[in-house]
């Protein structure tokens, strides 16, 4: 034990002896780690955005529809509200939020223009925690109740239609009996979505108002559920399918397959980058360690002659590289933490908004360092770094004493 302490002291002293060299390799290690973590955070931020958008726009963790609705999302494929078994399941502890909606294609008209949209009839209270709309209204007010006679439209759509809060728009759609259903709605609030596409695509009204307008009675178009923990999805899905037999129950991964694919792609890119950065840094580390070892051949030779076993010399050198790696990693993590906290408010992509939408991103990207990435990058650098320092350590340890002492 005392030996270990001694080795540690020796290692630390050697490392500190040549400040400049140590500093330079530290820079290499910390830049490598900083870049790894930052890039991973950017990628995770992108993934989170894509997944969040996929789940939170309206999909939730899973949805229930009448069979045929997904192919033809119209008023013809509506279903009865949840039965007792389903309701009981929805009252369980795994469920964070759930709500039923009316959701049909419609047309919105103002004095100046017309637009095709999806009319969504909601229970405003149920949408809290279930979808984005509850927190997205920044102008005007949110809907009060399923009987609210107002309408929420997206800001971009309001601009296009030349309308605003307090004005009336006419919504036209097809009722359940195939007659034309139309109604005037007062715009009570404008919502902002992460993507402009969301603002143009949806308009929200009270669910009962929609049911009356479309002559649906008590029928609805869909049921959306948000669980407390996404990992419980498969189990819950199975139980819900049994309880809601005859209905089409699907998880978000089926309803939004692209999101999943993007996450997988992002993951692959992160690890590829990690490996590249590590190798680039490893060259420098090995070279530095080798040099540090070579110039101390006399010292090592002397230690060996004094009785220090080669194995301990190896350990000492390994400790040296550990110090370098640990210090570099700490600096790298610190730099990354600093940069990420500076970008806490997100990186604004509005200049390249259309480009961002192409990649599935919203207006702002929030880099998010995942613990697993930080640990992974650090472990890669430190563990493999130690591994690559074994060669110089071995070289240090295998000198024959006399040769070493007399070497010039």
């Amino acid at each position, binding site marked *: 034990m005392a030996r270990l302490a001694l080795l540690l002291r020796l290692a630390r002293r050697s490392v500190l002896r040549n400040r*400049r*060299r140590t500093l*330079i*390799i530290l*820079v*290499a290690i910390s*830049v*490598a780690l*900083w*870049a790894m973590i*930052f*890039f991973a955070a*950017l990628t995770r931020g992108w993934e989170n955005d894509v997944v969040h958008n996929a789940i939170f726009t309206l999909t939730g963790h899973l949805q229930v529809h009448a069979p045929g609705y997904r*192919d*033809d999302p119209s008023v013809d494929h509506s279903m009865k509200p949840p039965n007792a078994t389903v309701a009981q399941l929805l009252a369980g502890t795994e469920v964070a939020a759930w709500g039923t909606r009316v959701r049909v294609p419609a047309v919105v008209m103002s004095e100046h223009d017309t637009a*095709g949209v999806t009319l969504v009839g909601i229970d405003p209270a149920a949408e809290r925690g279930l979808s984005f709309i509850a927190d997205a209204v920044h102008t005007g007010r949110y809907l009060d109740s399923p009987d609210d006679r107002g309408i929420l439209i997206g800001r971009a759509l309001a601009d296009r239609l030349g309308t605003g809060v307090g004005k009336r728009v006419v919504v036209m759609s097809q009722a359940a009996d195939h007659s034309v259903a139309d109604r005037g709605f007062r715009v009570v609030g404008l919502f902002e979505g992460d993507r402009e596409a969301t603002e143009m695509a949806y308009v929200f009204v009270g669910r009962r108002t929609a049911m009356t307008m479309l002559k649906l009675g008590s029928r609805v178009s869909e049921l959306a559920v948000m669980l407390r923990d996404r990992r419980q999805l498969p189990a819950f899905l199975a139980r819900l399918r049994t309880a809601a037999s005859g209905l089409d129950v699907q998880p978000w991964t089926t309803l939004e*397959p*692209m999101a999943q*694919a*993007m996450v*997988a*792609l992002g993951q692959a890119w992160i690890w590829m*980058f990690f490996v*590249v*950065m590590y*190798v*680039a*840094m490893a*060259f*420098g*580390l*090995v*070279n*530095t360690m*080798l*040099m540090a070892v070579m*110039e101390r051949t006399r010292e090592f030779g002397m230690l060996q002659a004094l009785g220090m076993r080669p194995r301990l010399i190896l350990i000492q050198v390994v400790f040296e590289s550990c110090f370098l790696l640990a210090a570099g990693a700490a600096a790298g993590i610190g730099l990354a933490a600093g940069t990420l906290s500076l970008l806490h408010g997100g990186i604004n*992509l509005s200049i*390249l*908004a*259309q*480009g*961002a*939408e*192409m*990649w599935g991103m919203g207006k702002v990207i929030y880099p998010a360092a995942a613990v697993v990435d930080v640990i992974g990058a650090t472990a890669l650098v430190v563990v493999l770094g130690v591994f690559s320092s074994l060669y110089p350590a071995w070289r240090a340890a295998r000198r024959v004493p006399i040769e070493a002492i007399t070497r010039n």
Partner: protein
Amino acid sequence: MSAGTVIRSTSPQRPGLRLYLRLAWRNVWRNPRRTLLTLSAVAFAAVILVFMVSMQLGGYGAMIRGATGVFTGDLQVQAEGYHAKQRLRTAIADASSVEARVAAVPGVTAVSSRAQAFALVSSATRTYGGMIVGVEPAKEPSVSTIPRTIRKGRYLSGATSDEAVVGQALASNLSLTVGDEITVLGQGLDGSLAVAVLKVVGIFSSGVPELDRQTVEMPLASFQSAFLLGDRVHAIVVRTGGLEAVPHVAGLIRAAIANRPGLTVLRWDQLLEGLKQGIAMDAAVGWFLYTALVLVVTFSILNTFLMSVLERTREFGVFLALGTRPRILGRVVILESVILLLLGLAIGTLAGAGITAYAGVHGIAFSSSEELLAQWSLPARIYPRLDLLSVTLGPAAILLATLVAALFPARRIRRLRPVDAMKAV
């Protein structure tokens, strides 16, 4: 330095470059292991950069080709104002003569005209809004890949006037199969009802959701007659055989149609604004990654340069004492670094080019992400593009950064005091 090598020149002129080179070369190989490690670091970075930049450029090229190849084309001639707002009236009059003129422009490899309008499409059971596009059946395949993406049935043959091909999603919304009849109801040029009854001869699946969800293609002549357009079209689609040629050919086309007022030539990046921005974003991320890599490699080998100078402090002291000017020593040291870097870069660039060339032939498969890549008009197999830019960009950046790094140790030499230096260990 081996004995017998004269440092101070015997002739009054300055020592020649060949001398420096020989000295530098010998110094480089004095410590083979260290040199090899440094070479590897540089070569590794060069390989990575050449490959990654080639992949990026190849990927972008594929994306652009994919996006423009499906429907947009490299260039389009349109009536002014059509791109901003697609009105049926904003059309190119006397289109066949304009098309002929455009076809004659050098650099144009394919031309085809289109007219389009939004209309109601009805099958036996359903009605949906759709974009009806009148195309020239013989020429359209040379400017668009849609004819090649027919999944059921066949493309328009040009022999009959009342046939149509429909996008897959629209076909399923309308519950259509090949052989069914659809009616098109829209508004003609003078406001009268534009009607057409068409037989579905094929269903296509281009991979682009917007196209598959709302497009119906029909023969141009029938479209013009149904919508009362006469000889008018909305777009003359042009292919140029290469994205680099686009700006030049655009200029030539503008000159060729200069006598027809009210027409404008649009490049693919003006037609697909989001694509250009998306590429810019990806490129920005790429720059970040490359910068990080270059930085790490630079600092990695900085120690090497430093060490190789520091451990020869005694030697330098001796030479300085003998009267060698510090500047000369500095040049030799820099030359050593340059040789090292150039050698490493040469190896790396060649290796990188080799790997990239091989991948360029066989492509890199991303089979698990095929559907996702199709969203971005990318094929499942990407071919990195090896050209002057991708071969030189990365290595040049490395060279620049590492040269700057190499300068620092060389400057130290100037500050050496011979007597102290000679005493160094």
